[in-house]
């Protein structure tokens, strides 16, 4: 085979690979959008479910997912960034630190249903939080932390060492250096990790299955110790547990969840590209 022909063959194969990998994404998103869009209405987005969830809206599920995502953020973001700062700026490079890092990487690989079981055992039963928003947020936080810690640590390490040395040589303490130079530089990278982590928390079903989610709750949760409906679990319920469910409602719910998650993704991308533009000054 001539080199020209090989070249064209390889190029064709690579193009096919790209098409094969991206096409399903467009098909899935497009299918959900086309079938789900007619279900979207003011009522759908703001009303309680009716007729055994076969009609009405998904308002409590939307609110529940917002609560869970927000609560997870409040717990996991400060904790995760603090841990990343410790690992990147303070921890000495020794066996303990390496073990901690390996543990974090492995935590990120644990199946989410295992987190769910762990949350059930620790938060719901042992600490007696019951099936509640608190238990759900704590469980989702544990699942999200490894993602936030490792991306934030990476972002912190990407800040040039020379910035730190200069700041110290100008009479800065270590903490002043971190707060005034290192953190601001690393912030876009950290935010990207935070959003990607929370996006996963927003979309997961398994961790909240045993810890926070209610099958059907015709009212909004009143306290943090109430169970709540949530979009991913609601989608699971109406797709598998309720007979005679209109397809439109299922896909409408999926579309809302998808939009929620994808817009978080979009925000992360925007932050990253804006930071990249700024860096070139």
């Amino acid at each position: 085979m001539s080199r020209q022909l090989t070249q064209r063959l390889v190029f064709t194969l690579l193009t096919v690979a790209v098409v094969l990998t991206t096409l399903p994404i467009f098909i899935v998103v497009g299918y959900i959008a086309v079938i789900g869009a007619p279900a979207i209405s003011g009522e759908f987005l703001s009303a309680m479910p009716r007729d055994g969830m076969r009609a009405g809206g998904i308002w409590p599920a939307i609110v529940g997912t917002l609560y869970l995502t927000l609560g997870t953020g409040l717990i996991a973001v400060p904790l995760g960034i603090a841990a990343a700062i410790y690992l990147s700026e303070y921890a000495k490079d020794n066996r303990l630190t390496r073990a901690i890092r390996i543990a974090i990487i492995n935590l990120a690989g644990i199946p989410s249903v295992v987190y769910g079981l762990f949350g059930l055992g620790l938060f719901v039963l042992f600490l007696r939080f019951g099936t509640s928003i608190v238990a759900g947020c704590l469980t989702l936080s544990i699942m999200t932390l490894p993602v936030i810690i490792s991306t934030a640590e990476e972002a912190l390490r990407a800040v040039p060492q020379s910035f730190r040395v200069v700041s110290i040589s100008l009479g800065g303490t270590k903490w002043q250096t971190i707060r005034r130079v290192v953190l601001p530089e690393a912030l876009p990278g950290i935010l990207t990790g935070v959003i990607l982590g929370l996006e996963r928390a927003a979309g997961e079903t398994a961790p909240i299955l045993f810890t926070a989610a209610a099958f059907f709750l015709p009212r909004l949760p009143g306290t943090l110790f109430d169970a709540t409906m949530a979009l991913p679990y609601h989608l699971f319920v109406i797709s598998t547990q309720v007979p005679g469910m209109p397809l439109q409602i299922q896909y409408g719910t999926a579309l809302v969840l998808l939009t929620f998650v994808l817009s978080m993704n979009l925000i992360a991308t925007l932050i990253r590209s804006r930071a990249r533009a700024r860096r070139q000054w």
Partner: protein
Amino acid sequence: MTSPSSARNGLTNPLPLAGAGDPTRASSAQPKIVIENLSVQYDDGTESLRNISLSIPANKITVLFGPAGGGKSTLLRALNRLNDLVDGVRVTGKIYLDGEDITGPEVNAVALRRRVGMVFAQPVPLPMTVRQNVTYGLELAGVRQSWKKEEALEKSLRAAAIWDEVHDRLDAPAASLSGGQQQRLCLARVLALEPEVVLLDEPTSGLDPISTAKVEDSLHVIKRDYTIVIVPHSVQQGARLADHAAFFLQGELIEHGAGQELFVTPKHKKTEDYVTGRFG
């Protein structure tokens, strides 16, 4: 002229704390920094400085020169405790700044670095504006009054001979300046803290001749107010700047004395060989 007589025999440097009580030492020639038997070793056993004793006179330019790897930068970093940032460095011996030992673990290294500033070989503007770069050190030190910061801003930019080029773009990103401007900004940033000693580690190594001349000119002017210790990027630059000079070779101090002496009539064969370009 001051120091050469007292500084030449490094092994019998005056005990700095004895300055007042020792009538044989004229206090006018009291050195700013006295280094006694300083050695720096790394964990892997390599030695960067071996038993250095040297006095650095106040309000003069002291040039530390010699081939690469001689320990000059390590010595600079010992003077403002930047070696602390590196794991596995052992510093023994004493360094006195105005008679006060600055080597012990109890010394407040953060406060010391405000008194002993440093300009690095590569200009590193912090990712901020020109103005913020200059006032950064003051803000770290807790200076809040904006008039104080403004005053220091103009004064130090003028002293570093860069005011005319940046006064109308103080709020531009520091990284948008040229390399030569960035390095003078870095000098201004150090001067804004009004330190007592300014250390410069090959500050002009990346600069064009015109920028280099500007930096050198500014050093000649500011030595009135500061004690300057510089590692030059060439023998010629060392000779141009030196009031006082010290020649380092493989971690040892070979010879030191008045600048003219060292660069024109060195006593030691190795110094002569290096200065005349026979090696290095």
